[in-house]
């Protein structure tokens, strides 16, 4: 499973001997050393502070914060709700992800390409925007769907209330089910048709083939996807806050936010709760990896796989209906309603010629102070974070693949670790680490850059690793043998060859950094607002039309870049190389 497996587990090319020393202060050593130091500073140091903070440092030292975190009823409720959310979204991801994957991977259903693309679209849409859309759609009484249902059935109040636990599970579920979908899809595509044919020749009925051949083969992918969906749902601060707060439901990330956001901030309790969230995530990931390792039925050899589409006859039509309604709710309806709202004078009025306006786009993109600043900051931050993360990722990958230095595996692990850490947790660690000596950058834009690099460096590392691995070290050796310096070899041989891969790595960091919310909300200050903050704050003030315009803009940017990634890497969405977000 690519999404979380550290790149250091399965080595392809054996590491070649470290290049001949070029003097104690050679450029190679300085560059690599700087990369290592930066990674330790941005990932290791904040994690250390999370532990210190939970012990009450720097004010005091003791176990009272940990004790308090685990004994207060509010925190207990947050833990129970968070587990319920994870369980609910996990089950939901199986219920819709698996049938959809079957339909697009193996059936002769019409429109299967469209369904596949729309699942990808729902995945790249930042989930807090989906949450906002669902308030417009299913707000208890005034939501568009509820008004429709009220008008149709003559009800006095809307029958569906998004502000509930099932509302939160639904809104997060239609985002995270993509994990289960993509993993199952890939696994189904890898099942060789000859296995199914053998079963049928031996007299198995089709349902028996599915149950006895296909299901066992794809079960690890389904379980892995389900666990990943559940783990991702734990971390999604945005929808938890936007829907959970009005619903009076507290989750661990929103609880952590409130312990720091109310005054005076309670750092110790926030750190202790963060550790609890880390423990949940780590347990989930360990379970997922352990399960995958035990139950991997490898059927794929080196040769290509021949898959067969099964004919479903009349069953195609209910299947199509189901698939279309899933992607309608996960992508079409939320993005559609945000677009309609962005162009309406008032979202509550029906769309008509007199109700169409561009004023909200004007406000979002040109006049609103916070919004305009947010757009500029997000572009700057995402660009800088992507550049730094790619440089770091390239260094880690280089050390890992091209040298035999001691500790390189550990470094690789450190560079992959943040992938499993919720944004809220990273933010608490970074806040505690960089609020004081020796690097007090809290309150400046640098702390956001640090957070984005730390959060998204795994995406760059994995990408760089994959890209370097495709390049034969012999090419670099040839460069060195003919007398080129290390740096010249890098510049003339490795970088040009790795450029397309590194560009993909850049975009893979840029996309989630551009719309990051869960860490930003704890770290921004006046003047360093980002797009996500503008959206969150304007929503607080009830300016839903301007929020929608900003949302449409954000989705537009993210979607264009995602298409670019797809085109550059020449792979389908199913590669698993999908950006994470929170």
């Amino acid at each position, binding site marked *: 499973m690519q999404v979380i497996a550290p790149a250091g587990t399965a080595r392809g090319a054996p590491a070649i001997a470290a290049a001949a020393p070029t003097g104690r202060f050679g450029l190679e*050593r300085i560059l690599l050393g700087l990369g290592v130091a930066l990674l330790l500073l941005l990932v290791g140091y904040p994690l250390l502070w999370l532990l210190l903070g939970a012990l009450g440092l720097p004010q005091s030292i003791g176990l009272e914060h940990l004790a308090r975190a685990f004994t207060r009823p509010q925190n207990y409720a947050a833990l129970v709700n968070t587990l319920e959310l994870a369980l609910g979204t996990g089950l939901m991801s199986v219920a819709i992800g698996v049938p959809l994957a079957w339909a697009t991977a193996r059936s002769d259903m019409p429109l299967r390409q469209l369904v596949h693309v729309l699942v990808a679209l729902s995945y790249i849409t930042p989930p807090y925007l989906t949450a906002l859309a669902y308030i417009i759609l299913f707000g208890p009484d005034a939501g568009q769907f509820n008004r429709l249902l009220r008008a149709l059935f003559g009800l006095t109040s809307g029958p569906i209330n998004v502000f509930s636990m099932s509302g939160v599970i639904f809104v997060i579920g239609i985002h995270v089910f993509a994990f289960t979908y993509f993993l199952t899809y890939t696994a189904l595509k890898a099942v060789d048709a000859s296995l199914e044919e053998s079963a049928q020749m031996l007299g198995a009925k089709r349902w028996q083939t599915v149950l006895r051949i296909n299901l066992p083969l794809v079960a690890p992918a389904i379980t892995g996807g389900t666990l990943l969906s559940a783990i991702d749902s734990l971390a999604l601060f945005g929808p938890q806050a936007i829907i959970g*707060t009005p619903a009076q439901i507290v989750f661990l990330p929103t609880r952590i936010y409130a312990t720091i*956001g*109310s*005054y005076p901030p309670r750092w110790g309790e926030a750190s202790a709760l963060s550790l609890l969230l880390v423990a949940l995530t780590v347990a989930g990931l360990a379970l997922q990896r352990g399960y995958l390792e035990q139950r991997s039925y490898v059927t794929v050899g080196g040769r290509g796989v021949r898959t067969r589409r099964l004919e479903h006859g009349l069953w195609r039509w209910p299947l199509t209906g189901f698939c279309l309604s899933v992607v309608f709710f996960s992508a079409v309806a939320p993005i559609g309603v945000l677009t309609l709202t962005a162009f309406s004078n008032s979202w*509550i009025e029906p769309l008509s010629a007199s109700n169409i306006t561009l004023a909200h786009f004007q406000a979002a993109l040109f006049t609103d102070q916070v919004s305009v600043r947010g757009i500029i900051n997000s572009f700057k931050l995402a660009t800088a974070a992507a550049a730094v993360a790619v440089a770091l990722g390239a260094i880690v990958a280089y050390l890992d693949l091209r040298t035999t230095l001691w500790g390189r595996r550990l470094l690789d692990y450190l560079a992959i670790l943040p992938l499993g850490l919720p944004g809220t947790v990273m933010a608490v660690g970074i806040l505690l680490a960089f609020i004081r000596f020796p690097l007090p950058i*809290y309150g400046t834009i640098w702390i956001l850059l640090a957070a984005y690099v730390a959060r998204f460096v795994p995406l760059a590392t994995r990408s760089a690793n994959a890209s370097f691995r495709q390049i034969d070290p012999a090419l670099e050796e040839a460069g060195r043998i003919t007398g080129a310096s290390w740096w010249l070899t890098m510049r003339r041989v490795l970088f040009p060859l790795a450029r397309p891969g590194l560009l993909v790595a850049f975009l893979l960091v840029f996309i989630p950094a551009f719309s990051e919310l869960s860490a930003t909300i704890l770290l921004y200050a006046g003047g360093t607002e980002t797009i996500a903050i503008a959206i969150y704050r304007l929503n607080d003030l*009830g300016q839903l039309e301007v929020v929608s315009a900003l949302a449409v803009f954000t989705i537009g940017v993210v979607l264009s870049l995602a298409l670019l990634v797809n085109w550059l890497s020449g792979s389908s969405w199913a590669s698993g190389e999908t950006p994470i977000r929170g």
Partner: protein
Amino acid sequence: MPIARRSMIKGVVASCAVTLLRRQAKAQAAGPEDAAQIDLEKAKAEGKVVLYTSLDTQIVDAINAPFTQKYGIAVQYFRGGSSDVTSKVLAEADAGRPQADVVDASDLAALLLMKERKLLKPFKSAAAAAVASNLRDPDSTWITDRLTQAVIQYNSKELGSAPPKTWADLGKAALNGRLVYFSSANGDGAPRIYTLAKHLGWDVVKAMAATKPLRVQTPQIITQVLERGERIAGFLQNDNIAWRSKRQGKPTDYLFPAEGVPTEIGACGLLASSPRPHAAALYHEWWMGPEGQALLVKGGKYSSRTDVAPPEGSTPLSELKLLMLDYAEYKRDKTKILDQIADIFGGEWGN
């Protein structure tokens, strides 16, 4: 691995050097101690002023525009709930990285806490003469800028003829599932709930909570929910938001219950660590002066200045029974009070 160790040492040395330089640069000039000492040229030279406020952005924008026009000094502001504003000020103080010059919050307890932590700078405002002595700090670190009354706002189409007139009316079973109120996850709605409970008893509050009211993040969203008819009445709504909605011709109205109206004291002050002390003092005097306060009133707020009239068409405060909060007590018992409110209403209160 000698290389990494070596460059790590280098990095640490470099970052220490940067920090020391920053620390030196941060030693601030004290700036003026009273309004008469404000040096206009120095203020202009500082170029901008940074305000942290919990006031509605529409009013903040209205106050800032003429200030910038008059003095050529840009106003950059951070707007959030009172808790957001306060926790940012405290965190930045912890970091030794003050960003704000002027702070304003609708929760006096927040300013009392900042004063206790020595974050506020004593400054004798010219506005002191126009503000009642119980509404300003004897040590001049804060001064009340506005008074926000918590009202009942309702949809006039649904309840036009017979709106609920008292807080007790709102606790009746007929309003089950029809009410709305606000609080951020950080408990910004708590002071007014506590004020009501303190004066009228917790039973009134518990009865309202028993109707299962919809909770929204901010007063601005209460009014939207009512305008859309999603809920029919809102409790403890900001008077200025209710006033604005009614004046804009939206189908809402509001009233001040006869049992008494919780009043929230919003106050402002200068930060001791202000990076731009002259511009800050100048802005403070604009904000508190007759012109700034008139703009505040135009946005529907009641000014703390006795020489500024209440918002057009509003009941003068002297005709209302105002329920006040002992903010020192609230600051002291905050965790306990929030626990109590969270027990009654459920959800997140930042406790």
